[in-house]
């Protein structure tokens, strides 16, 4: 680079600053300037795409880290002391020695920081080096570069399923109409596809895109973090301006889907991209305990100063009382003495040095070590290990383990966190008949157990549509599943996150049809083909296939980018497995164990299907043709099977806005109604007969939250009639049902509606997402007249949306019910159990989801966040005024309710459901308090349709207003903000990439792991650490006070009667390991007990075990003990010829015994390790001290410990004093513990007591105890009998629908007006 004058550099920098700060940015293409030096580049002021989240650089690590470390007050204190010790007038010890502790501390911390930063550096580097395609003018094509090379003004090409490297203005796509689908799950967690259009009017979308022809200037706004807003325009050379918005912006972090490739112009790069701006970097989290600890450290400082002041004052007075200079006063070298006041002043600092250990010097290091140990045990917990992903719990934050034991609020994401994020078609009801799809349920049950998913794509062959579903085909499927799930695992581990194509897991794509229904259809088909009459069954499936916005894409195109992993998967698949089987000598045994595992599975299945009986016999016994060859052939055949179904229909893949729609389309496909193609104005469906029907789409009445339904108006290709298919939420449909389905079921229509409603209720109770399907035949005349209205509405300028909606409502009347479906967003394993346990532990659980309220409420019931008897308050309003009044009313009602004396015993649980818009208003500064007050009274809160920033805002508000410990758990990048805002962020490593995990403090693989993580590890970590810290304070005070008391007998001169090295050893070796072990390993209550009695968790909430009273009590105890430890030897050695260090030795020994035995009283469970460490410490003390005083003759002048312990140990008095003093020192604490445990045992002590009993009496007593304590308020009865309403026997038909009717009923009681529910449709 050429030399430039500093002035020019400054000017350049200023100009760059100005360019970045300007409200509007002018961006030009880089291509004309390619290869020129940096100063000539038009966009040189804007940052590149490389990101850097590390804190340190290699060169500056030491100064920066030291600087960082000295933010810790304690470190400054220690360094100050060390420096003070170098001042001759005040020093108490040899100066160099005082440096050792602080150096050790600084080094340890620096090592830890370096390691953490290195991990950040690695992840940055990985991201920055991700390949991408940038257009190069020289090579006239897109060339492969890295993400970090992307600059503003470049043209970047993104291929399907690739992640967008920077914020791109979309200019061209492979799609002729210039659209592109993106999936923003990395940003906001929404897995549905979003449509992006190329910038219209910028006519450069020739079939082949020529970036070089781009000669406009893009003017865009300053970078901001709003993901849903973007403004820019392009100014062509002829000054014509073309505008564009968010619909043309591809955001960094999104994945391009369903589009072969797209080309965009980089507008923001690197840290200026919207996703990075949304990522408000990691926050240094300090645990609550640590904050409290610092207050206590502060008290210690005060204590220290008081003691030093006493020392200084005492020294002053002592000096003043001396009439002349006694021989033991040493003047300075000039022979004159400092005045008493000056000596007193110096003495103050000497005292600080002498008593410095009072500020627990090793506490911070010990805490870090303890936390490392705790993390070791957490990560090694086999219960928190997930076999399917082969992942343990990961602890990313090393310093907040104990916060896990103090959580009061949990904020959870829904999709992917509570649920598997896999929509599965479960059941349907057609014309009032329920088809339970038992086979499908079995398949799901089978899938659930080995959790093999991807292998099914190949092995579990989609059957040709029209085959009869016989038992033997079903038999093979689970077998295949089982054989390959081992091999599949390898592939999954090998596979990258990219291989997760949206909604392509077989769980969702595969549906095994109900046999009864299949017969019904074939019957209907034959009849309809003969009589040309449309059967409602066929209609139902047509509706399923047509009435949606699902886009069809070919699977091959979809998987282009993932072919690599696909390939590896195939090579790893059964053939490999087989060779492995042959090679490995132990394989036969393994096969054997495989079969042994079978019966268990059989049992779980038979719960669901009693009728299926022996379906799952090992194939060795069965004689079905497919299984003749037994195990090995099965493995051999699998690959050929997987390659076989290369028919067109199987390569179809569906891209849906919501996974529900995809699930329905897949369900229709299973019955032979295959959606083949969808264009703007036509839909092609292949019928079971093989015939392709092309429906002309006349209009699509899109879904909106007010109507809660969508419709599609098509012209039937055979009958040429206009048919309107509508699907929607049950309550939005049921009231629109018109005259009976006249054709052939007249009279029974009412029954159909009632039966369907009953089925819907059952579905909902089962936690299924329900949808109703209706059909309406629109007469030509009616259509014509409606069309006029519709056109007028579409053309309207004012109130366009309202008018359009009105027209939709006009058409959607007099519908005839076809049926209903139940889709399951399967809850993860043990989610309800976990939530119930967490709630019993006194934790409030909030669910924040981007989903719509219905779904959220549905899941809320399914996961027992909401109970049937809960009072559910639904808040949804449009403007702030209503919001305020609703809030006030509700709050008033709730208050009155809780204050009502009649409700004292029957505290009804209140749950709040609130949507995103209302939430925004409720969180505004003036309503915040009221909202929080209301939410505080609610047992659970469900927030729907919330954005990532809102999520974090909710967390922040609750955290700050209620001053509670919060935990956020989520799995997607949309949860990152929330995870970072909470005291503890937990990421669930799962379907949606790794962003949440990267940002989290802990990463788990299943929601249910939260239970053990909090209830057991949280409790343990917290009590261990709290007790350890209190003990640490105690220990230091008890020890240092010995020195303090001695000052009264040495003229406050700062003499230590214990050798300084032994003092350091005392803290460093003799008494350091036991508390660390105590902090890592003490088990106050067993894990079973903690899981069995979640109420025990409440011990840690709020102040918990670490209260100020506890602190002060232990301080007093320390004072008492130090008094005893000093004065008993003092009185015993009074008037004797004992010398300074001989006097100090028994004191040191007594302290050791007292301090260790004190810990022994606190230790709740003694394992071998405890014994070894405690006894080892004592032995070490004697060995080291004996060695030191045996070898060190003059090595540590002036103190001279030679042969002192040896001579003391030869003296019986030494032992007598040690025994007596230790007993006297510990007696009060011991008696206190004994009395408290006997008279008023804490719940923990009781639990500990129960722990010792044998299991049967234990469980009995636990039950008794819990009911006595009222802890088991949350009914657990439902847990024992999983909710599986038998739909065949309509006994509980009178049960209310827990979703809709309860919500509305409660609203009525509460007099809460929510616009949506009160006047749903009258417009």
């Amino acid at each position, binding site marked *: 680079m050429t030399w430039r004058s500093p002035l020019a550099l400054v000017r350049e920098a200023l100009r760059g600053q100005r360019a970045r700060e300007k409200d509007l940015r002018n961006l030009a293409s880089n291509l004309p300037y390619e290869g020129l030096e940096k100063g000539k580049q038009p966009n040189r002021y804007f940052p590149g795409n490389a990101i850097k989240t590390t804190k340190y650089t290699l060169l500056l690590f030491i100064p920066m880290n030291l600087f960082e470390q000295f933010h810790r007050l304690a470190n400054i204190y220690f360094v100050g002391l060390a420096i003070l010790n170098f001042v001759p007038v005040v020093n108490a010890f040899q100066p160099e020695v005082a440096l050792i502790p602080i150096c050790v501390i600084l080094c340890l911390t620096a090592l830890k920081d370096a390691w953490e930063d290195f991990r950040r550096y690695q992840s940055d580097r990985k991201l920055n080096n991700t390949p991408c395609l940038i257009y190069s003018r020289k090579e006239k094509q897109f060339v492969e570069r890295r993400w970090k090379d992307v600059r503003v003004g470049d043209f970047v090409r993104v291929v399907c399923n690739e992640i967008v490297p920077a914020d791109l203005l979309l200019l061209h796509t492979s799609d002729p109409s210039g659209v592109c689908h993106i999936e923003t799950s990395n940003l906001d967690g929404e897995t549905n596809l979003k449509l992006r259009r190329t910038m219209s009017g910028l006519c450069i979308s020739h079939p082949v895109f020529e970036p070089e022809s781009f000669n406009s200037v893009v003017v865009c706004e300053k970078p901001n973090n709003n993901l849903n807003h973007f403004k820019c325009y392009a100014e062509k050379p002829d000054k014509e301006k073309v505008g564009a918005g968010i619909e043309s912006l591809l955001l960094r972090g999104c994945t391009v889907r369903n589009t072969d490739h797209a080309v965009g112009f980089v507008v923001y790069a690197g840290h200026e991209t919207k996703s990075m701006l949304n990522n408000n970097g990691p926050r240094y989290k300090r645990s609550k305990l640590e904050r409290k600890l610092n207050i206590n450290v502060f008290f210690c400082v005060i204590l220290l100063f008081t003691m030093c002041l006493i020392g200084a004052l005492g020294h002053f007075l002592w000096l003043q009382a001396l009439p002349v200079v006694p021989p033991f006063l040493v003047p300075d070298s000039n022979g004159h003495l400092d005045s008493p006041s000056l000596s007193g002043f110096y003495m103050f600092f000497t005292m600080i040095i002498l008593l410095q250990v009072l500020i627990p010097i090793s506490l911070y290091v010990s805490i870090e070590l303890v936390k490392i140990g705790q993390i070791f045990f957490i990560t090694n917990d*086999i219960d928190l290990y997930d076999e399917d992903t082969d992942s343990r719990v990961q602890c990313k934050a090393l310093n907040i383990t104990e916060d896990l034991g103090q959580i009061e609020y949990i904020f959870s994401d829904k999709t992917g966190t509570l649920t598997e994020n896999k929509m599965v078609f479960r059941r349907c009801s057609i014309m009032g008949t329920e088809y339970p799809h038992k086979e499908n349920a079995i398949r799901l049950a089978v899938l659930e157990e080995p959790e093999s998913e991807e292998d099914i794509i190949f092995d579990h062959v989609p059957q040709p549509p029209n085959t009869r579903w016989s038992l033997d085909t079903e038999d093979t499927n689970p077998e295949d599943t089982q054989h390959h799930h081992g091999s599949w695992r390898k592939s999954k581990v090998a596979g990258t996150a990219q291989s997760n194509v949206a909604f392509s897991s077989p769980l969702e794509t595969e549906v095994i049809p109900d046999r009864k229904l299949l017969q019904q259809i074939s019957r209907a088909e034959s009849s309809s083909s003969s009589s040309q009459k449309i059967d409602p069954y066929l209609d139902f499936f047509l509706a399923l296939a047509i009435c949606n916005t699902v886009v069809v894409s070919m699977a091959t195109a979809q998987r282009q980018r993932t072919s690599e992993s696909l390939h590896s998967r195939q090579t790893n698949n059964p053939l490999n497995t087989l060779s492995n089987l042959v090679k490995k000598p132990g394989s036969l045994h393994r096969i054997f164990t495989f079969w042994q595992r079978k019966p268990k599975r059989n049992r779980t299945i038979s719960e669901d299907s009693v009728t299926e009986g022996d379906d799952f016999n090992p194939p060795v016994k069965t004689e079905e043709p497919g299984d003749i060859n037994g195990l090995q052939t099965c493995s051999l055949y699998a690959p050929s099977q997987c390659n076989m179904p290369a028919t067109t229909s199987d390569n179809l893949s569906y891209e849906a806005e919501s996974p529900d729609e995809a699930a329905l389309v897949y369900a229709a496909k299973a019955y032979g109604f295959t959606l083949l193609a969808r264009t703007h104005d036509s839909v092609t469906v292949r019928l079971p007969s093989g015939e392709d029907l092309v429906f002309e789409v006349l209009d699509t009445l899109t879904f909106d939250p007010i109507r809660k339904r969508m419709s599609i108006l098509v012209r039937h290709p055979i009958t040429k009639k206009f048919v309107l298919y509508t699907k929607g939420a049950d309550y939005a449909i049921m009231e629109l049902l018109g005259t009976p389905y006249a054709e052939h079921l007249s009279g029974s229509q009412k029954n159909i509606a009632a039966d369907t409603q009953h089925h819907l209720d059952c579905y909902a109770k089962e936690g299924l997402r329900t949808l109703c399907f209706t059909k309406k035949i629109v007469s030509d005349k009616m259509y014509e007249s409606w069309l006029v209205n519709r056109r007028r509405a579409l053309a309207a300028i004012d109130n366009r949306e309202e008018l359009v909606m009105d027209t939709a409502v006009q058409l959607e009347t007099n519908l005839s019910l076809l049926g209903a479906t139940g889709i399951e967003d399967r809850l993860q394993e043990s989610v309800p159990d976990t939530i119930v346990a967490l709630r019993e532990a006194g934790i409030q659980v909030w669910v924040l989801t981007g989903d719509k309220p219905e779904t959220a409420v549905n899941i809320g019931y399914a996961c027992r966040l909401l109970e049937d008897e809960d009072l559910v308050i639904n808040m949804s309003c449009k403007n702030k005024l209503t919001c305020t009044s609703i809030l006030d009313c509700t709050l008033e009602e709730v208050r009155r309710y809780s204050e009502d004396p009649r409700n004292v015993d029957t505290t009804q649980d209140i749950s709040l459901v609130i949507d995103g818009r209302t939430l925004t208003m409720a969180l505004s500064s003036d309503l915040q308090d009221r909202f929080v007050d209301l939410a505080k009274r609610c047992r659970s809160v469900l927030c729907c349709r919330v954005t990532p920033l809102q999520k974090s805002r909710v967390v922040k508000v609750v955290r700050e207003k209620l001053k509670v410990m919060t935990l956020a758990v989520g799995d997607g990048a949309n949860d990152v903000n929330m995870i970072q805002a909470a005291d503890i962020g937990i990421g669930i490593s799962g379907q949606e990439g790794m962003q949440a995990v990267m940002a989290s403090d802990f990463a788990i693989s299943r929601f249910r792991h939260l239970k053990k993580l909090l209830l057991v590890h949280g409790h343990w970590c917290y009590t261990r650490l709290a007790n350890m810290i209190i003990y640490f304070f105690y220990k230091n005070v008890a020890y240092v006070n010995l020195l303090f008391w001695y000052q009264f007998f040495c*003229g406050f*001169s700062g003499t230590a009667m214990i050798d300084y090295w032994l003092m350091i050893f005392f803290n460093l070796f003799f008494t350091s390991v036991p508390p660390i072990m105590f902090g890592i390993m003490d088990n106050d209550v067993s*894990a079973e007990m903690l899981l069995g009695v979640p109420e025990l968790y409440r011990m840690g909430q709020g102040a918990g075990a670490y209260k100020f009273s506890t602190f002060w009590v232990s301080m007093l105890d320390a004072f008492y003990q130090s008094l005893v430890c000093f004065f008993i030897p003092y009185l015993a050695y009074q008037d004797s010829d004992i010398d300074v260090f001989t006097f100090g030795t028994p004191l040191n020994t007594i302290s050791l015994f007292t301090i260790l035995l004190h810990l022994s009283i606190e230790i709740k469970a003694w394992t071998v390790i405890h014994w070894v460490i405690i006894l080892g410490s004592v032995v070490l003390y004697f060995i080291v001290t004996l060695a030191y005083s045996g070898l060190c003759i*003059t090595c540590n002048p002036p103190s001279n410990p030679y042969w002192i312990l040896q001579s003391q140990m030869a003296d019986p008095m030494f032992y007598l004093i040690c025994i007596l003093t230790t007993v006297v020192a510990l007696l009060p604490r011991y008696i206190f513990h004994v009395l408290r445990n006997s008279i008023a045992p804490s719940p923990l002590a009781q639990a500990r007591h129960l722990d010792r009993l044998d299991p049967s009496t234990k469980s009995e007593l636990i039950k008794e105890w819990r009911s006595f304590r009222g802890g088991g308020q949350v009914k657990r009865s439902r847990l024992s009998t999983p909710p599986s309403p038998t739909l065949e026997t309509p006994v509980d038909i009178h049960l209310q629908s827990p979703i809709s009717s309860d919500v509305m009923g409660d609203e009525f009681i509460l007099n809460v007006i929510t616009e949506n529910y009160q006047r749903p449709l009258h417009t």
Partner: protein
Amino acid sequence: MVKEELANRPDNTAFTQQRLPAWQPMLSAGIVIPGFVIIGLAFIGIGVALFVTSQSIQLLELDYTGVEQTSPCFKCSDPNAKNCMCELTFSTDTLFKGPVFFYYGLSNYFQNYRSYGVSKDDDQLSGNLDNFKSPSDTCAPYEYDRNNKPFVPCGAVANSLFNDTFKLYQIVNGAKKVVPLDGKGISWWTDYNIKYRNPAVTPLKNAFNGTVKPLYWSKPAYELDPSDPANNGFINQDFLVWMRRAALPDFRKLYRRITDGDYAEGLPAGNYSLQIAYNYPVLSFEGRKKVVFSNVSWMGGKNEFLGIAYLVIGSLCVVMSVVMLIVYAKFKFPEEE
């Protein structure tokens, strides 16, 4: 093949899963009763033994500071008095059982004062000749004299060596009979043999060439005990006893033992006279000087405190066991049989 895949699976051991077999003591009233009883009884036993032993020790203390005008040493307490001698008489009614230890005691004397204690040179005292020429600066201001000659031994501790001397006579029929005092082995064996060494120069005097005796000393170190050449320099027993600094401001230090001749069995009943060369000034800082005769038991000198403390704590434990019994009867866990 399944196992190999699970590389991350944690070890399922008792340690990693925190399931090590553990002893979980429950501190409750019922369990601790036996412990209290045993400890209580044991303590009472020890207490009785200690108390009885302590009672059997004879102790005789004589203050000779000379504060009161009636005191025979009053004349010597005048700071201007040089080479003052005074004589103290006392009598014993019974045999003072031997071996009798003869201590001198100082009160309000802070040998544990920090800067005082630091003021010595251990290397010099262990016979390092380099430190004769240039003592450690910890000795300041007793490092060099005005002529810049080093003090040997340097430092405040050595400088302030106690220099009163005593002679004990039994008055038998009006005549003074010298009671032989044994000055050997009154210091720690390790001090005499290991820690403190004279430089390997013979005669010892030569080693001290170019040095001066400490300010307050009347004789140089190599002439401390003219009667015994092996008791000079740094390994002089009195010097060693003094250099071992007392822990508390009221202390006694062993001066001699009475183990020889007629007095091996102890001091018979009778009148005694103690002749004191009164040199050491203590009145200026309100200190006191005394001599102490005592015999010792296995537990050292006379000290009743420990025995009483054991008795008190032992009784307390017994009382606590009764209290625990009451508590146990009232509050035992229901299933605690």
